[in-house]
């Protein structure tokens, strides 16, 4: 008897690839504000994301991992969080970060090689970007533990890629979430690729959601390009967590329409047909179609939105590009609350050296 035969994971979907309702929609969709907001947020995020890629291509920013095609997941997840909840994002969450109120310029600063991109107050208690894959799953479990210990009713939401589900940190965190009934929402952004490694050679499990089963968690799959399905799944998961009923694993199925990062060239390892096909399922066009059908969107609104996005991005890019280099002392001052004596000496050395050489930094 094979595992697949005795494990069933539900899959949620409401909209067809063309944005048509596949079955009765949930009541909240009657109120169009939410859906329009999702649409607006995704469009702005996609424009910001494209700008980030362009900045890299023009030598004005470092390596950047585009969220192209995956905007729905991050957008819906972060829309449904309360400000006091804690987000533990991964590196492909630009749309969600913007939704959390974090300035695009912060995110550009981060990828522009400046620690101050994770420093502003806008971040609240949210975590900075996480590069070492799956390590953030442990952080989420710790955040959730803190919330639980203090009888607070916030939730921790953590996201990661399909590749991240192979790393032990992830399953250790799932296991803890199960046994301590932690208020966590685990979001697996399954974009089918981990750099060049396709989903099917990442794991032999028919779904990644079922990794949650191994920890006794509620585990579901959802169409990650369908904001309605996402809203349903994430909302239920947040409610469950907030009411003390434990964590949920949501595998959101999407597709990485871009390269892994600007340092990658996906044409080396993936078929262009697959990519073309995936474009037919992407979330923004799908929701636009839906909104058009319902008469909630039109060309005029679209034009205005594009303009609004451009203006916002322009402002943020300027702020990014005009951010002066940090002081040399900044490199030393944040390692300890109390500066060790020897480090102070090294700091003075670095300052003197920079002064002597009149050294600048990158893009200054």
């Amino acid at each position, binding site marked *: 008897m094979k595992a697949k035969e005795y494990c069933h994971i539900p899959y949620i979907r409401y909209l067809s690839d063309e944005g048509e309702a596949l079955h009765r929609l949930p009541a909240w969709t009657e109120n169009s504000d939410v859906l329009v907001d999702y649409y607006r947020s995704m469009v702005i995020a996609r424009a910001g994301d494209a700008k980030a890629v362009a900045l890299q291509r023009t030598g004005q920013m470092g390596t950047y991992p585009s969220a192209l095609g995956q905007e729905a997941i991050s957008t819906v997840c972060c829309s449904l969080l309360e400000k006091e909840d804690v987000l533990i994002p991964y590196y492909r969450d630009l749309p969600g970060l913007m939704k959390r109120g974090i300035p695009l310029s912060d995110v550009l600063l981060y990828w522009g090689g400046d620690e101050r991109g994770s*420093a502003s107050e806008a971040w609240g208690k949210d975590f900075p970007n996480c590069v070492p894959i799956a*390590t953030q799953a*442990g952080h989420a479990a*710790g955040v959730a533990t803190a919330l*639980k*210990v203090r009888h607070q009713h916030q939730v921790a939401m953590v996201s990661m890629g399909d590749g991240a589900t192979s790393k032990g940190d992830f399953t250790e965190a799932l296991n803890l979430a199960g046994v301590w009934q932690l208020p966590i929402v685990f979001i697996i952004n399954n974009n089918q690729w981990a750099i060049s490694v396709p989903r099917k050679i990442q794991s032999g499990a028919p779904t990644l959601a079922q990794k949650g089963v191994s920890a006794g968690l509620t585990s579901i799959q959802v169409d990650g390009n369908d904001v309605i399905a996402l809203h349903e799944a994430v909302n239920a998961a947040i409610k469950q967590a907030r009411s003390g009923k434990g964590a949920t694993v949501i595998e959101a199925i999407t597709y990485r329409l871009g390269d892994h990062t600007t340092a990658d060239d996906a044409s080396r390892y993936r078929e262009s047909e697959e990519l073309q096909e995936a474009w037919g399922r992407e979330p923004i066009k799908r929701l636009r179609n839906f909104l058009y059908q319902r008469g909630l969107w039109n060309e005029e609104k679209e034009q205005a939105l594009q303009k609004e996005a451009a203006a916002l991005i322009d402002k943020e890019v300027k702020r990014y590009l005009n951010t002066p280099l940090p002081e040399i002392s900044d490199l030393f001052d944040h390692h300890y*609350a109390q500066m060790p004596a*020897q480090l102070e000496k090294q700091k003075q050395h670095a300052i003197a050296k920079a002064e002597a050489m009149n050294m600048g930094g990158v893009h200054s």
Partner: protein
Amino acid sequence: MNSSVSETVDQSIPKEVSEKLTMVEAVNLALDHAMADDQDVVLLGEDIGVNGGVFRATQGLRDKYGLKRVMDTPLAETLIAGISVGMATQGLKPVAEIQFMGFIFPAMEQLICHAARMRNRTRGRLTCPMVLRAPFGGGIHAPEHHSESTEALLAHIPGLRVVMPSSPVRAYGLLRAAINDPDPVIFLEPKRIYRAVKQDVSYDTAILPLDKCFTLKQGNDVTLISWGAAVKETMEAANTLQEYGASVEVIDVATIKPLDMETILTSVRKTGRCVIIHEACKSFGVGAEISAALAEEALTDLKAPVERVTGYDITMPYYRMEDHYLPKPDDIIKAALKTLSFH
């Protein structure tokens, strides 16, 4: 007392009564008092609850402070470090136990990539006031992997503090300081001397400064530098050398990261001779940094080459032969006499 959630102090603390305690009992008392003083202090680790830890360092604390503040974790060291980071960023002060230092390696990614860096990478927005305790070192005839001394790996990491006590009073004072500290501290407990001596320890016992060496004995002819359990053999050697007529200074480094080179340099500038003693392998050990810094910064004051008395560059032997690995007072005496007779 750094309490952000509550100012209540548990009335059960016997503030006045001072008791003769072993080091592991002093650790227990420090945890107890830290938890009483600050509601944000929580303990976590494997078998630390009902069982009170395999060395009993957390004994009684679960009964006293409850399940929510004394948490038995699943068997997963990566997780233990990871959730500590998560908790600490939200304002708790987790004190995690790694059952033996030989099992700390799964925690390395979290310690190096996150605990050590959280303050710097958020420019202070999030911090990581966590303590990771682990018993370490050999000499108790433990099974394989239960006798490691790999403090050098942690000492190399910017953003970490690495602290090891060598007496009950210092265990109490340094652990309280480590818990109060707003940054991550690896607190390594030399289990070979967990029950070696008893000292008076109470709520009034001083909270000691981190980042400072302790001069245990003053002298003019040679400086012996050590930390952890090896301080025991170092003091024995110092006493014997004293009988031979040498005036010996003994320094317990106590915090190996960041190093208090000032105290060490001042001493060696005075004596001109130095022996460094540690149980870890010699090559690329903590002794190398101290020896290098001495020769670099006080070359002309050195009357003899610095000597290192350490473990060999081999895996800790299983216990039948571990005595051949561990530095002995005789080794220290020999090295000291060698430096003393160098011209």
